[in-house]
């Protein structure tokens, strides 16, 4: 009788202590990263800031390279509507075309970027960037292309 | 089972270590006390009166208990601690993040140290209010006051060791107080304590040695005297 009471009592104490410890060392859930804006002034949402937070490192680097090398023909949003596009025939590829882009493997895209249209039996108007961009830079561009047309599954 | 235990208690090995039988009669109980190195500080019989917690509150005994806790945890902490700048701080972090139970040891050491300062002070108050400082115990009272000072110094020297902002400025404020001692004595003392004019690596090493060796040894000696006197003056 007494032994049972003792056991109950001690197990209760033990549980209470564990609870106490669990409460005290509760690990916070991951907080949302990024700077909260000063509340004194309504924050203006900026496109590129949102991009920075949403894009992976490769995609961001890819975006930067894309805007420098590709946008003149393929357009800033990759729709194939760069300012130089109307001088070209055939027209530059629309990278937001999911069905077309998803059918291409990374290796194929890499080949196109590196060797240009002439290397893959497409329009010679697409230059080859293999001599200008390093391998990992070409990879970044592919990552960004994948961001422009995310796979549909 | 009983048989096996009986064999054990009568074996030569056991008897060579424990020269008394099971403490089941007053004789063997008395033997347990005076054959045991740790217990022989006590008399074999005590007044029933002194068992009352409300008289002594056990404050002196608990102070000694805290000292034991501090020695054990402190000894273990020494295994991981390097008294150098800025290693000391990173060792604290390692205690927290890597060493098994390191944070627990450090917490125990820290809180026990604070508790000991309070406990020794309370013990002193108890002794005063029960009049236990009066002759012939006046010398033991003086030893007790010195032990209080030692306790505070131990706590104070340990305060610097984590080498964080709290430690650094706590110690800086403390040593600046000592500088107020006139005739250049304060300057000399703080220079001696810090091994320089500012709290730096020298101070850290000095505080470490004081904290881990000099002050505890001095404390042990004084405690020995303190306990011995308590016993001789008729205490437990």
């Amino acid at each position: 009788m007494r032994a049972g009471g003792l056991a109950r009592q001690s197990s209760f104490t033990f549980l209470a202590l564990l609870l106490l410890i669990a409460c005290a060392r509760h690990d916070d859930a991951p907080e949302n990263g990024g700077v909260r804006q000063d509340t004194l002034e309504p924050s203006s949402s900026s496109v590129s800031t949102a991009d920075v937070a949403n894009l992976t490192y490769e995609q961001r680097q890819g975006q930067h390279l894309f805007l420098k090398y590709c946008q003149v023909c393929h357009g800033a949003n990759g729709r194939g509507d760069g300012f130089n596009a109307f001088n070209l025939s055939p027209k530059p590829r629309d990278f937001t075309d999911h069905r077309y882009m998803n059918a291409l493997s990374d290796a194929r895209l890499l080949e196109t970027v590196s060797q240009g249209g002439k290397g893959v039996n497409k329009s010679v108007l697409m230059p080859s960037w293999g001599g200008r961009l390093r391998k990992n830079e070409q990879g970044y561009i592919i990552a960004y292309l994948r961001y422009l047309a995310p796979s549909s599954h | 089972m009983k048989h096996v235990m009986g064999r054990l208690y009568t074996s030569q090995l056991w008897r060579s270590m424990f020269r008394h039988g099971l403490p089941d009669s007053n004789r063997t109980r008395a033997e347990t006390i005076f054959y045991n190195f740790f217990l022989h500080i006590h008399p074999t019989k005590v007044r029933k009166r002194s068992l009352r917690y409300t008289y002594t509150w056990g404050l002196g005994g608990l102070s000694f208990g805290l000292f034991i806790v501090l020695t054990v945890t402190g000894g273990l902490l020494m295994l991981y601690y390097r008294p150098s700048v800025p290693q000391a701080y990173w060792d604290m972090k390692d205690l927290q993040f890597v060493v098994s139970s390191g944070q627990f040891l450090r917490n125990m050491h820290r809180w026990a140290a604070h508790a000991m300062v309070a406990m020794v002070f309370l013990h002193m108050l108890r002794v005063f209010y029960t009049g236990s400082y009066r002759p012939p115990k006046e010398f033991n009272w003086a030893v007790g006051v010195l032990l209080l000072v030692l306790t505070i110094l131990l706590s104070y020297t340990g305060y610097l060791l984590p080498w964080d902002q709290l430690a650094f400025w706590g110690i800086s404020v403390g040593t600046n107080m000592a500088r107020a001692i006139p005739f250049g004595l304060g300057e000399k003392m703080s220079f001696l304590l810090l091994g320089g004019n500012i709290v730096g690596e020298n101070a850290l090493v000095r505080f470490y040695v004081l904290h881990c060796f000099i002050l505890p040894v001095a404390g042990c000696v004084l405690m020995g005297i303190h306990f011995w006197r308590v016993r001789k003056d008729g205490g437990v």
Partner: protein
Amino acid sequence: MQKDLRAEETSDARKSPTRIAFMKHRMAARVKRESEEMVMTFPNLVVRELIAFEIMVIVLAVVSLVFDAPLEWMANPDHTPNPAKAPWYFLGLQELLHYFPPVVGGVILPALAVIALIVIPYFKINIKREGLWKENRKRTLVILLVSVGIVSIVLFLFRVYAMLIPTVAVTLFMLLPYFYPREDGVVGRLSGRPLSWWIMTWFVVIVIVLTTIGTLFRGPEWSWTWPWNGTY
């Protein structure tokens, strides 16, 4: 006629300096020792000590599991925190330094306190521990009021209200048995307290008040800050 001579057992050597009874001629000597009940140290005392120790470690362990020892930023000699505080047991002293010049607050007063503590037992005044008001009530009152008055004026001049108020409060309690003599209750108990008791109590109250203020009520620039507005 046979009169019992009682030999009191006491550890107070001054009160009963010797334990020799003077015997008259032809008197039968029989010293009766007042026997006190004794018990075996083992297990009565040893087990109690162990229990006390264990409970203490349990409490410590719980505290250690719940509260982590502080570890702030790495020491930075270039940045003084505001306020810079010593460990809590020195905050009473630091508080004193706030009021008095460093030599007084940091050296003379604490040194006096430690010396006073050590020498208390060597002053054999009032060894019988008689109440403050037992004899020479008038003279005691004058001396008390004059000394408290001097201390209070000094404290007032330095604006040390943190010490002035406890001093006055303790004095009021001291005066209580003088003006309202009672045999029982709180006043009755206070009337039995000797001067040394009062001084120690005064000292303890001041230590506690100053340490509490220093720990909880002091903020940046050592200004008064209520604990609910943040402790530093």
